[in-house]
């Protein structure tokens, strides 16, 4: 049977036109030589995937229990250690939830794209938990968050203005990641992953250095990657802000002592605010209305600009790039062929087909980049509107969109100590 297959293979090889293989006949061994049996090693990936998902659910469950029910930080640290060790150093951070956004987006627009079940689960489970309990995934299950959490030794607060502005980056990053994923250009989240090289103990030196800078920052600033880069965190914040069970600062009555606010590494606790600004209500309302009028304009502007640059953006697509190279070559055929062109002509590539493909990609870019522009306009517009709203608060409150559930604030609360004897539980 096996011989037959080999023969078939040889036959097919001979058929393969243009590939002059099988120049030498199969030797007839007289010494009774046997072909060596070679076994190609395969890792037990399917088993590991099941462990991954089991651990994901288990760790998120532990964090939820610790944050919502038990109100303690200790388990979260252990979850972080396990996550960094397992998802990070053992599993090398692939496939991670952050990157899975791209697979999901591609699967939504392209029905031929094969979406592994594990990727879907890695995407949807943290979202589901965020919807139920807040960003418990970020708290310590995500190896990136956990790594930064473990590294964080002392908290210095960034100016709030700066963190508001930097807080827009994840949204824009998310929009571009979706654009590049949908057009099958590249998975930029995976390519510009700062910590994966750290977990793999090797990789692109540029990204490792960037990751090192982020980690050094994370020593003193709470979770710079999660707050100012992570597109998945941005997505989760949508769900956590309307989550069913919410993290509370204290079980008892708040005494407005400010300790929790100072303890929060991600600046997610809003101090009480009473309007002291000497401004008429009409002016405030008018400003707000102005921004509402401006919103559609911004959307239009974003759409217009992105449409303009869409052709340039499409050049990062492989097919478009190859098409340009082929066109360059056809205009000036005398030049030496590059590796890409040699492969293209060598495989009998038809320029018309390539042109069709490239044009398809370009029209995709025109369409999706316009949508991306709309979304960018929306993000900026909404940020501006949010910034022109005055809200009165009597007590310290958690901003559930920003809170990553690290549970630091609990032990700082003077009211917490009344119920719990253990003062120095957390590191």
């Amino acid at each position, binding site marked *: 049977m096996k011989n037959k297959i*080999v023969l078939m*293979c040889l036959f097919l*090889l001979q058929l*393969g036109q243009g*590939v002059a*293989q*099988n*120049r*030498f*006949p*199969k*030797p007839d061994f*007289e010494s009774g*030589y046997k*072909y*060596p049996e*070679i076994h*190609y*090693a*395969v*890792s037990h*990936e*399917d088993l590991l995937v099941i462990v991954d998902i089991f651990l994901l659910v288990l760790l998120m469950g532990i964090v939820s229990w610790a944050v919502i029910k038990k109100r303690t930080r200790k388990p979260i640290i252990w979850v972080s250690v396990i996550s960094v060790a397992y998802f990070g150093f053992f599993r*090398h951070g*692939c*496939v991670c939830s952050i990157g*899975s956004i*791209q697979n*999901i987006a591609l*699967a*939504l627009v392209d*029905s031929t794209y*094969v*979406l*592994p*079940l*594990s990727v*879907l689960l890695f995407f*949807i489970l943290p979202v589901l938990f965020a*919807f139920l309990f807040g960003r418990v995934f970020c708290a310590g299950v995500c190896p990136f968050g956990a790594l930064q959490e473990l590294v964080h030794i002392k908290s210095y607060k960034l100016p709030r203005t700066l963190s508001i502005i930097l807080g827009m980056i994840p949204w824009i990053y998310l929009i571009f990641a979706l654009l590049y994923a949908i057009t099958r250009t*590249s*998975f930029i989240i995976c*390519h510009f992953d700062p910590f*994966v090289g750290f977990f*793999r103990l090797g*990789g*692109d030196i540029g990204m490792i250095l960037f990751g090192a800078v982020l980690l050094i920052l994370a020593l003193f600033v709470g979770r710079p990657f999660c707050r100012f880069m992570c597109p998945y965190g941005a997505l989760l914040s*949508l*769900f956590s*802000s*309307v989550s069913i069970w919410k993290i509370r600062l204290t079980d008892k009555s708040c005494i407005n002592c400010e300790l929790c606010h100072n303890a929060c590494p991600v600046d997610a606790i809003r101090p009480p605010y009473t309007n002291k600004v000497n401004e008429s209500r009409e002016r405030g309302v008018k400003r707000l209305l102005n921004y509402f009028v401006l919103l559609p304009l911004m959307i239009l502007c974003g759409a217009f600009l992105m449409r303009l640059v869409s052709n340039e953006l499409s050049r990062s697509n*492989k097919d478009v790039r190859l098409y340009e190279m082929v066109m360059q070559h056809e205009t000036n055929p005398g030049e030496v062929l590059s*590796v890409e062109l*040699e*492969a*293209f002509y060598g495989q009998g590539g038809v320029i018309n087909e390539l042109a069709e493909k490239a044009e398809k990609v370009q029209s995709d870019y025109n369409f999706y980049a316009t949508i991306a522009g709309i979304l960018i306009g929306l993000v900026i517009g*909404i940020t501006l509107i*949010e910034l022109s*709203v005055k809200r009165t608060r009597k007590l310290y409150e958690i901003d559930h*969109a920003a809170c990553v559930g690290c549970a630091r604030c609990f032990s700082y609360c003077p009211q917490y100590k009344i119920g719990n004897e253990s003062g120095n539980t957390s590191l």
Partner: protein
Amino acid sequence: MEQKIENKNENKNSPIARRKFLRVLGTAVAGGSILAISGGLISRAKGSEVSHYWQIDPQKCTQCGRCETECVLQVSAVKCIHANKVCGYCDLCGGYYRSNVKELNTAAENLMCPTGAIQRKFVEDPYFEYSIDESLCNGCGKCVKGCSSFGNGSLYLQIKRDLCKDCNECAIATACPSNAITRVSLDKPYKLKDE
């Protein structure tokens, strides 16, 4: 996005009841969208395999040498694989010797492989068996080029499953000039030449 707008709306006017209503609405929308996405995709994901492996199509490979340099690993997960059943067991092996070798011995000046990963064993006159020491191979593909140019093409590059990190997007695949790297299904983890 929708929820964000609603959150903003909710901030706009202070009446507690209104805010509560919007919050419930937001929750409903969020829950609904989770259901919609998972419902829409789970039917697709169910039919497909759990995971997919990156593999090189040896017929498409042009041995450009990028496998060696583009892999995220320090030493590439792409290794040279030898299909013994396709091999001609030649004495003068285009993959083993440099292109204009003078003497057919194992001296350094005659060998093609930069890391010395190809081993040669005498079988019987005039046949020699070649094998790859995987721990030395760096996937540069020089021998593959030699073999497919002069020989039967029994040497070829392939991604080793036990070494590959199974990145969400293979870095070599994006750099491959001939689009030879694609995902294969779980039950066929290797694209081999001799099977």
